[in-house]
């Protein structure tokens, strides 16, 4: 099947060529004593023909044992049986390595033969065998220390060297207009202004190098640099502002993390520190909000917050929640796919499943949620400001309570003297009878429902059915909608996409299903088809007729009046609940309070309530300490175990929070005790990830920087530096960049500067047929690869060209959808994007599983996962959006409005703003013709759709 692609990439075969001196006796010993045992006992799992190769170890060729398996060491050391893993394993010297597995130990004589054979130097004639690498081991390129040499060389030297190897050359430099356009988008994500282009072009003609240097410096100093590169980092960290999964509730207080990213990048915070803060900001900077907020990274991913009583399901949900943190951490910082080692050892990289659970151990104490993040000063100031009013409030509440207790006590005594005339209401069905009366209108006024009577506000409670019956023989329910009745009443809940939901019409549909959610005012008004003589009503809040166990859902009205009217103007009450047994004694007390309370008490209570309200206003006016969705950290609840097959209900071996085995050859290991605190766990991991000896972190970061400058990284799978990922096109250059990054104190700007000023970056984009035949995608960079603007760049550009971009930075985001919540959330894309949305797109509150116009069309990722590289599609739906959405039309109008002068000046100005160049005479004429027939706005709408606007050279 070659249609889509090979499922697995194979390394070129490594022919084994080492020739051993002929040793006929040794070979004979091998053939007689060793080979049969290997074939019988070992090949099943350790040969090229094994159904499932174990530990990546091949014993059917000499090269196989020389190379060794996952341990990374040769399985045999000729002459040294005691250092040979294979020998130790069949001798059962190490408890965790007993071979052959699940079988009796080999006979002593056989083991002795193996020892003898190794002492002989392990002669092995199986030289013709080949080793096909089907996975990476610890010799994998990305796991090696950074190459020491080359740090003083330049980017261009590395690039030209590879080009020369292929007989290629760099392209000539781009023209200054192309260069400033490219660099401005690249560094700050916006187009240059016509004035900036003119100034740069003039400076460039005087001294191209100096002008380019000045341009790079100016752009890197812009605060918009942090917005552009911060947006990249938000992709890498799967930053999204809703919780995802079924409920997908919006998160309104995660934006401080976005601002933290922007500010850190603008401030050139060293990236090792930046990364450490992501994992343990709360530990590194307690009381320092600017640092504490960083560990919001851990909880910026999706998680399932649906309550689940099923124990196994609950454990699976928790495991999935931690899996998101593990996956995000591994991918963003280390470029490894630890999540593949959740159920078994990684199939392609030397990551044992224990490593996955070591990472889990680091995060066991983390849960999603918000907490106060404030400095000591802010906390102290808040305490000082609130202390006095809080005291006052406590005093007032106590006095009010005392007064109420006294009144209630008297009401209770009174209640005992008045035995109820009728039983309490029945949520299944309650009937009220009254003298026959002619009525066209019936009103059910609800005073209290079956919830706590003291805590009730107007409204609340629910009704399933409300019936109005005619007097006399053949009584009919004339409230029914099918009998012409109509129901009106306020609702306490709405569902935007299903307008009938929770409405009063359900009370007269004749079905015991949907409920009316009673709103405020708590009144149901039934209009009959015509005036009828009626003598009773019934109401119900349960399906109590067909199924025995039907119970009321939610509260039921229990204190009420029934009023009727002939004309809808004059009402009179025909029934009340006053003589019914109260739903609870507390309901009874509430009913009597009004009678019992003295005028003095009433006045005193009113005064106290006024005072309390005043104090509450004072308290409300004091700004709250800021809460941020930055996670809640508690001691790890229980020890961490490896889950067999990834099943949390099958814990096996315990693991402690510790460094990862995959890098144990290059980094100093650590292991914490099982009772290490949550903070210690995350801090230790952070320090280890950013340790100087860890080659992956700077390599992965340097590669990201390169990718965002050139469109493709030196490794084209930026969060996968493992076996299934891409190989570096320029490994020495990658190590050079990584080493420079570290030397620059983990600051990005010096690296940007080196890249921006290189000839490689400054070359043109023209397609050269000869070069394209050799290197079609220009991975070797014989030209600068052109690209389409990304989603945010496109939206920002349209706003900027129209003169509408609001450059205010930071703070809560804007929304291009309407958010609604009815248990679960729904996000409706907006048809109009008002001026309040005219900020840079990084400030859009990106909710998961939402679709918004322009941004989604142009591949803004849905952030279920990190998006270390964006898709880049071309679809007719993009065309429809850019042509027809009111956003384009509004901006076309705005652009038209900012063009002054005669038609020629208008056209020239529009070209300068949109394309940063002058129109040709032919272009001028074509534009003038369109304007003449359909106006400037039509011309502007076309420009905002033009390829030249959206493609960058």
């Amino acid at each position, binding site marked *: *099947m070659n249609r*889509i692609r090979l*499922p697995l990439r194979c390394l070129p075969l490594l022919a084994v060529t080492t020739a051993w001196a002929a040793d006929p006796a040794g070979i004979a010993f091998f053939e007689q004593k060793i080979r049969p045992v290997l074939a019988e006992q070992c090949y099943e799992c350790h040969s090229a023909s094994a159904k499932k190769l174990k530990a990546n170890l091949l014993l059917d060729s000499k090269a196989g044992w020389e190379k060794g398996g996952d341990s990374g060491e040769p399985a045999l050391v000729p002459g040294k049986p005691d250092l040979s893993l294979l020998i130790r394993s069949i001798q059962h010297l190490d408890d965790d390595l007993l071979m052959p597995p699940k079988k009796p130990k080999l006979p002593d004589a056989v083991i002795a033969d193996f020892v003898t054979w190794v002492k002989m130097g392990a002669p092995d004639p199986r030289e013709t065998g080949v080793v096909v690498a089907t996975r990476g081991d610890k010799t994998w390129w990305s796991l090696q220390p950074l190459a020491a040499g080359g740090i003083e060389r330049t980017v261009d030297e590395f690039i030209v060297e590879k080009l020369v190897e292929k007989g290629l050359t760099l392209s000539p430099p781009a023209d200054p207009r192309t260069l400033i356009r490219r660099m401005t988008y690249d560094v700050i994500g916006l187009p240059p202004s016509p004035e900036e282009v003119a100034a740069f072009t003039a400076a460039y003609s005087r001294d191209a190098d100096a002008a380019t240097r000045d341009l790079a410096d100016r752009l890197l100093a812009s605060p918009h640099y942090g917005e552009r590169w911060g947006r990249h980092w938000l992709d890498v960290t799967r930053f999204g502002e809703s919780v995802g*999964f*079924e*409920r*997908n509730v919006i998160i309104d207080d995660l934006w401080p993390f976005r601002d933290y990213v922007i500010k850190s990048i603008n401030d050139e915070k060293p990236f090792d520190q930046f990364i450490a803060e992501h994992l343990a900001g709360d530990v590194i900077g307690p009381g320092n909000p600017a640092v504490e907020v960083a560990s919001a990274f851990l909880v910026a991913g999706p998680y*399932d917050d*649906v309550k*689940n*009583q*099923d*124990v196994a*399901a609950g454990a*699976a949900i928790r495991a999935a929640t931690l899996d998101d943190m593990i996956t995000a951490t591994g991918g963003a910082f280390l470029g*490894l796919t630890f999540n593949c080692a959740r159920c078994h050892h990684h199939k392609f990289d030397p990551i044992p499943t224990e490593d996955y659970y070591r990472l889990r151990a680091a995060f066991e104490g983390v849960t999603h949620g918000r907490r106060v993040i404030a400095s000591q000063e802010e906390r102290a100031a808040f305490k000082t400001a609130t202390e006095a009013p809080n005291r006052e409030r406590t005093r007032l509440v106590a006095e009010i309570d005392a007064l109420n207790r006294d009144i209630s006590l008297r009401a209770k005594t009174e209640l005992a003297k008045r035995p109820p005339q009728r039983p309490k209401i029945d949520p299944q069905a309650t009937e009220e009878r009254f003298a026959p009366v002619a009525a066209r209108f019936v009103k059910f006024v609800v005073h209290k429902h079956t919830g706590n009577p003291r805590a009730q506000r107007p409204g609340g409670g629910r009704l399933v059915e409300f019936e109005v019956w005619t007097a006399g023989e053949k009584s009919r329910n004339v409230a029914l909608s099918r009998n012409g009745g109509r129901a009106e009443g306020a609702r306490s809940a709405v569902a935007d996409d*299903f307008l009938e*939901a*929770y409405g009063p019409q359900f009370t007269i549909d004749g079905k*015991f*299903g949907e*409920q009316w959610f009673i709103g405020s005012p708590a009144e149901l008004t039934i209009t009959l088809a015509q005036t009828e003589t009626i003598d009773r009503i019934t109401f119900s809040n349960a*399906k109590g007729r067909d*199924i025995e*166990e*039907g*119970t009321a859902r939610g509260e039921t009205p229990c204190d009420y009046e029934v009023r009727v009217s002939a004309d809808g103007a004059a009402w009179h009450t025909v029934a009340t609940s006053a003589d019914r047994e109260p739903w609870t004694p507390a309901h009874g007390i509430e009913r009597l309070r009004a009678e019992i309370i003295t005028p003095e008490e009433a006045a005193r209570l009113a005064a106290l309530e006024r005072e309390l309200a005043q104090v509450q206003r004072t308290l409300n006016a004091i700004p709250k300490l800021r809460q941020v969705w930055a996670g809640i950290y508690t001691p790890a609840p229980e020890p961490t175990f490896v889950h067999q097959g990834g099943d949390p209900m099958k814990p096996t071996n315990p693991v402690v929070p510790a460094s990862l085995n995959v890098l144990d050859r290059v980094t100093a290991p650590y292991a914490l005790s099982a009772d290490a605190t949550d903070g210690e766990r995350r801090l230790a991991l952070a320090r280890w990830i950013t340790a100087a000896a860890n080659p992956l972190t700077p390599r992965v970061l340097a590669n990201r920087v390169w990718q965002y400058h050139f469109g493709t990284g030196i490794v084209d799978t930026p*969060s996968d530096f493992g076996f*299934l*990922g891409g190989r570096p096109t320029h490994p020495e250059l990658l190590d050079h960049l990584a080493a420079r990054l570290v030397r620059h104190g983990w600051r990005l700007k010096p690296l940007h500067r080196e890249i921006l000023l290189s000839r490689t970056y400054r070359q043109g984009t023209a*397609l050269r*047929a000869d070069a*394209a*035949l050799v290197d*079609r995608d220009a991975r070797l960079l014989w030209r600068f690869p*052109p690209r389409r603007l990304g989603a945010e760049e496109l939206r920002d550009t349209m706003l900027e060209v129209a003169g509408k971009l609001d450059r205010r930075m930071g703070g809560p985001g804007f929304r291009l959808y309407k958010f609604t919540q009815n*248990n*679960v959330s*729904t996000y409706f894309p907006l048809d109009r994007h008002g001026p309040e949305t005219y900020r840079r797109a990084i400030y859009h509150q990106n909710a998961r*599983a939402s679709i918004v116009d322009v941004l*989604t069309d142009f591949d803004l990722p849905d952030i279920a996962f990190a998006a270390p590289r964006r898709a*880049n*599609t*071309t*679809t*007719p*739906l993009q*065309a*429809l959006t850019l*042509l*027809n959405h*009111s956003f384009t039309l509004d901006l076309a109008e705005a652009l038209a409005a900012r063009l002054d002068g005669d038609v020629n000046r208008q056209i020239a100005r529009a070209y300068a703003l949109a394309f940063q160049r002058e129109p040709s005479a032919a272009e001028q004429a*074509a534009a003038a*013709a369109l304007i003449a027939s359909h106006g400037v706005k*039509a011309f502007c709408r*076309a420009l905002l759709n*033009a*390829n*030249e606007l959206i*493609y960058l050279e």
Partner: protein
Amino acid sequence: MTSAAGLISGSRPGLLGDVRNNPLALSLTRRGFLGQMTSGLTGVALSRLLVRELTAATARPPHFAPKAKQVLQIFCPGAASHLDLWDHKPMLEKFDGTPLPGAEAEVTFQGKNGNLMKSPWPFAPAGRSGKMISTLLPHIAGHVDDMAFIHSMTSRTNTHGPGCIAMNTCFPREGFPSAGAWLSYALGSQNENLPTYIAIQDLRGEPPNGKANWANGFLPAQHQGVSLAAQQPLRNLARPASIGAEEDRATRDYLERLNAEHAAAHPGSDELRARMASYELAARMQLAAPEVCDLGREPAHVHALYGTGDRNGLKAAYARNCLLARRLLEKGVRYVSLYCASRASSVDGLLNWDAHKTLKADYERHAPIFDQPTAALLADLKQRGLLQDTLVLWCTEFGRMPTHQDGTAGRDHNPDAFTTWMMGAGVRGGVSHGATDDFGRRSVQDVTTVYDFYATVLHLLGLDHEKLTYYHNGADRRLTDVHGHVLRSILT
């Protein structure tokens, strides 16, 4: 494409993204060369070609001869009860009101369970096959001889959102492509003037987890399901009211000229031409989509068959969507997802099949909405011969408990047993695969997973589910993850 494979070695991402994963990028770039080298194609001819390739009519041969060319998926979200619709359990009737043996007061999703509760509706034999089916679905019962029931489905999650996504993507979390997106990716479009994959939402709103159910996941955006329903036209399709037809045409002619000149100045850039082609395609879609969505073109007897004029507004709305689904399939839309009901609202079972507390009332509300229009759609497809090429799937995310939920007259979630069915192209009618235990608590015979379900779907569309892969973040991903066996017993 063997020769093309040579081109991609050592380099993957191109201007259009990951070439290794993207045949469009591959063919564009490859032909970009040829165009560049031999320059035989004029702008117009090239642009026609590009239109075809943009719509992913990229002539990817299937792995073997397909039985089906397109898919209709009918999805009843909320965990539609197998025990009250499809899976007849005489023992459940017999032992109604007694404890479920060995599982007294078992705790499931919402809490404790009570005793066994028989279905409020009797089952009756239907069709020549005599299949027992709930009397709650009298119209659909007429189709059992064409259906292959899978009674032994299991899910890995007991929560609606993850369950719905899993039923569409095989993964109980967001971020993975749905089956429709995979088929768009694998097979492309049959009608370049319409979207390849359309999700028809219920009037009552989105299913649990919303748009993630028809997401492209990590596949390129052109494979995402496009939301469209009788009550909701294609977004941004219509020319804005403020712009006249003449102005629109003049503006687009001018735009085309701008782009043509720009492309001429950038020889060899197929991406620029591809974008020009996307505008052509958009224009054609503006003509084709309103036509296919115009239900007024259907005769009155067809409307009556579906029940589009029913006085139950929800039923009428679903009936209109059923009719729309047929019109889309007729026009060759590759994958149509049709939802009947929506999400978990503030009241269980109000907006979907999630009958936790009042099963009888809930299903007497949902079943009439579902029954007649769905049956009409199936009959219409059959009568028009569309079932020859169309595979019909009926899905829900998991099943319900045979017991009642403690203190209620409803059923809690049951991920261990549920029913789905298939019919149409390549499917044997009147058969049942697998079975649950005596009470329908667990699948016990030929236990089936969503992986098996979609391995079978892909098989019917001529695809080997183990070979349809896409590289993403460290793995060659498949629709069926690392599982799945084709359910051969239900194939013709």
